């Protein structure tokens, strides 16, 4: 059975972090009822674009969706379950911030149907937390993890590394603490800090005030994470994601396996099948305009396009090569004229195999751990081969 994931984007945050370039806005007083109505209406609108009926995962992301009331969440979940069939093993995740994660809130989310929490810890080092502009400290983070642990079977927390002035030696110590907690939850997302345009950090970088670790240091940190994660039995299953067996994120795996998903809320993306093609739907980015469009007009879609075969094929690689598991050639070949079997014979790609960055086995390929560290350059090569036929 093909799986379908539903993503609900809640764009509001109490404070905006200086590295964040997601579609977020500073929280303001909003009319929750109107917003609920809009989400429900838009879920219905977007659901018309897929013929899949069984929902495998629901994900409330943001923003800070833990600012929403449990009642709101429950109504959305109920609406989805009334309009789709819900898999018995459905994974329902909500993102939460340590500063807005009280035991009672978590308990209420659980009652509403949520069965997985993703907590934005980012660091256990108060100096780094301050630098990252987070509104919590490590004590709050640890307390939140403790609550989550008692209430939920599946959970994750996020960590950011590669922070300016971060030292390898202190990072190593921190990693042990990080993996201790991760072991208790069964899942960890650990991302390298990237500086994105139009963020306050970007401005700092441009003015020379951001002393980012060197490429060598970042590479050392990355491989240190891999080494320690093996020791803690939380191996990498995706570039930045680690879990104990069976605790992988079903929802995120859906993206990486290029399954169909619906994205509802300002700026959210959907990918659905359209005949033998892939269709992309993008919601209106501005929260106010999105709300208006959904309530007053027909829907909140800003852009709807059928991806070209090559675009879809590239998306298969962009997502699939992030994973530890092999990417079956069929997933790629269904879109691409140039088959994966031929592509790996091209010098630009063959070189990657010779150098141990890519592994190929029968009718599937994957990146090695070394390859994942330079995935961007690897994808660039695939793109060149696919689109320029090198």
């Amino acid at each position: 059975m093909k799986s379908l994931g539903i993503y609900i984007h809640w764009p509001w945050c109490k404070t905006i972090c200086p590295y964040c370039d997601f579609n977020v806005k500073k929280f303001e007083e909003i009319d929750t009822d109107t917003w609920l109505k809009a989400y429900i209406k838009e879920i219905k609108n977007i659901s018309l674009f897929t013929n899949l009926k069984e929902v495998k995962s629901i994900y409330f992301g943001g923003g800070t969706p833990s600012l929403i009331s449990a009642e709101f969440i429950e109504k959305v979940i109920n609406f989805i379950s009334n309009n789709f069939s819900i898999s018995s093993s459905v994974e329902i995740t909500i993102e939460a911030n340590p500063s807005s994660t009280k035991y009672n809130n978590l308990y209420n989310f659980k009652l509403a149907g949520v069965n997985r929490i993703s907590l934005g810890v980012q660091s256990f080092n108060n100096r780094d937390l301050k630098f990252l502009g987070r509104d919590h400290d490590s004590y709050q983070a640890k307390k939140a993890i403790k609550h989550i642990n008692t209430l939920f079977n599946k959970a994750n927390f996020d960590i950011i590394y590669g922070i300016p002035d971060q030292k390898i030696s202190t990072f190593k110590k921190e990693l042990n603490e990080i993996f201790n907690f991760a072991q208790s939850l069964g899942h960890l997302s650990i991302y390298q800090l990237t500086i994105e345009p139009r963020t306050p950090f970007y401005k700092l970088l441009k003015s020379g005030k951001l002393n980012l670790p060197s490429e060598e240091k970042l590479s050392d940190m990355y491989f240190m994470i891999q080494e320690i994660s093996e020791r803690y039995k939380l191996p990498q299953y995706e570039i930045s994601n680690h879990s104990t067996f069976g605790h992988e994120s079903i929802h995120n795996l859906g993206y990486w396996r290029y399954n169909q998903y619906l994205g509802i809320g300002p700026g959210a993306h959907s990918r659905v099948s359209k005949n033998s093609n892939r269709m992309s739907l993008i919601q209106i980015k501005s929260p106010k305009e999105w709300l208006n469009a959904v309530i007053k007009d027909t829907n909140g879609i800003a852009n709807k396009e059928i991806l070209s075969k090559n675009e879809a094929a590239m998306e298969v690689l962009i997502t699939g090569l992030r994973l530890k598991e092999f990417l079956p050639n069929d997933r790629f070949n269904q879109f691409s004229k140039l088959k994966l079997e031929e592509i790996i014979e091209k010098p630009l790609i063959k070189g990657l195999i010779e150098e141990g960055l890519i592994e190929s086995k029968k009718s599937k390929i994957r990146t090695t751990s070394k390859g994942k560290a330079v995935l961007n350059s690897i994808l660039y090569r695939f793109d060149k081969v696919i689109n320029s036929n090198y």
Partner: protein
Amino acid sequence: MNEISHIRNFAIVAHIDHGKSTLADRMIETCGGLNKREMKAQVLDSMDIERERGITIKAQTVRLSFQAKDGRDYILNLIDTPGHVDFSYEVSRSLAACEGSILLVDSSQGVEAQTLANVYQAIDANHDILIVLNKIDLPASEPEKVKQQIEDVIGIDASESVYISAKTGHGVKDVLEELVIKLSPPSMKSDDELEALLVDSWYDAYLGVVILVRVYNGRIEKGMKLRMMAAESDHIVEKVGVFDPKARDVDSLSAGEIGFVIAGIKQVADTSVGDTLTNSLSPISKPLSGFKPSIPVVFCGLFPIDSGDYIQLKDSLEKLKLNDSSFIFEKENSPALGFGFRCGFLGLLHLEIIQERLEREFKLNLITTAPSVIYKAHFIDGKIIELHNPADWPDPTQIDFVEEPWIKATIMVPDEYLGSVLKLCEDRRGSQEDLSYIGNRAVVVYKLPLNEVVFDFYDRLKSISKGYASFDYQLDNYEKGNLVKMQILVNNEGIDALSMIVNKLRAESRGRVICERLKDLIPRQLFKVPIQAAIGGKVIARETLSAMRKDVLAKCYGGDISRKRKLLEKQKKGKKRMRQFGKIEIPQDAFIAALKIGDD
């Protein structure tokens, strides 16, 4: 018909910037050839580049009508010659068309290397020499000292030098007066068989090919059939004229006269400077002496930076070729630089001029590969082949020996820079032939291999002498050389655009410099990349580019894969000018920068 005793044909011999074109302008003005409004500074230098660089590329001529103090009207024909060594053959042909020369020297600067080279050519052509000292109005002017210099160095009497300021016009009339007195009129034979010299030719958009001729005997007139002896072709004369300085038709050109002829010639390449013209119906038996076809001596590849400009480059080269038969080109394909042309030039300046005209007049962005010279490869089986492209270098096991061209260079330099200049010449495998002094300036004559000179010799010379050294050369002979083809390998693949012919003893240091430079220029790749210089299979220099270790884009969030895909596309656009070599990619910029010669 003009009375031959009333004609004076002359050239002006001078170093760059000594005021040749300004003097020519003043003479035109004085003789009333143009009114004030028509006078544009430096009338004779008609091309933008000529005017900007203050050099003459094509020989130009102007007929001046001058009434001398003796009351008689004279015709003074001035041939403005190219001043640069690259065009020395053209200079010699222009001088051959005259009976006398003005030796023009900047009285604040003194004699320079180019002055020497050109004045000796004039003396060799049996010219009467009129010495004119210019810029007499400048505070730094030292005419007495310069006169002494001329007598010491050139060995001609300078006591009757004319002092002028071409800028203000002071003394210009005296120059014209002296020309009439000092210079011999042309002589003629007793018969009237046509005998004329083709001094220059160019393409005019309205008239077609125009040839500039000097008539020695007989006459050229409209309707007659003209024969070009070396080219072995006949043409009907459509038009005969003179420049005064505007083109003006005349009925005929007689012995002693200089003028232009239009004769339905299709392209400049059909004409050769130095050819003898005669009457097809009654041709002379022996051509004028001294003809030689002009041969390119410096070669390089020209490639468009944007490969889409290839056709435009081809069209532009063809257009330039219309007017410059001394420059040649053929198609070349380089894996590093794409499609382009292998071009041959008379010298480095000629190369620069063509390159600049392509960029300026035709709006092309070009890459120029390292200049090369013509080598003569003697094979074991006795065959001799001329080579000017390292790509054509034969298997060394089949070569008996290789010869390379040497030049004789004359360098004049203030004493304080002499040490550095001598060191530069020695470093470039030079052997000293002579060292003398003019005042506090040294005149050194060196024999140098041309391939060391085309590399970056002139730039180095200028920089070590703070611009004070002047330089002139002529091709001397071919000599056996210890020459090898050095290849540059990136990731074990040869980069054709960077391979070069070098002296074996110099190969290692040259190779090291290029490897180091490439290491800095090539962005890090997904794996270690060796950069090597090699002769045959033997590596003589090596650098290693370390591998890229971390390259990530931001995480995919909320299923937004489009953003990532677009980032990749953007990245690809930014890398449009990448050239693929097996499993690595090198930006074209890296090659271009590696080809920029200079600071080794």
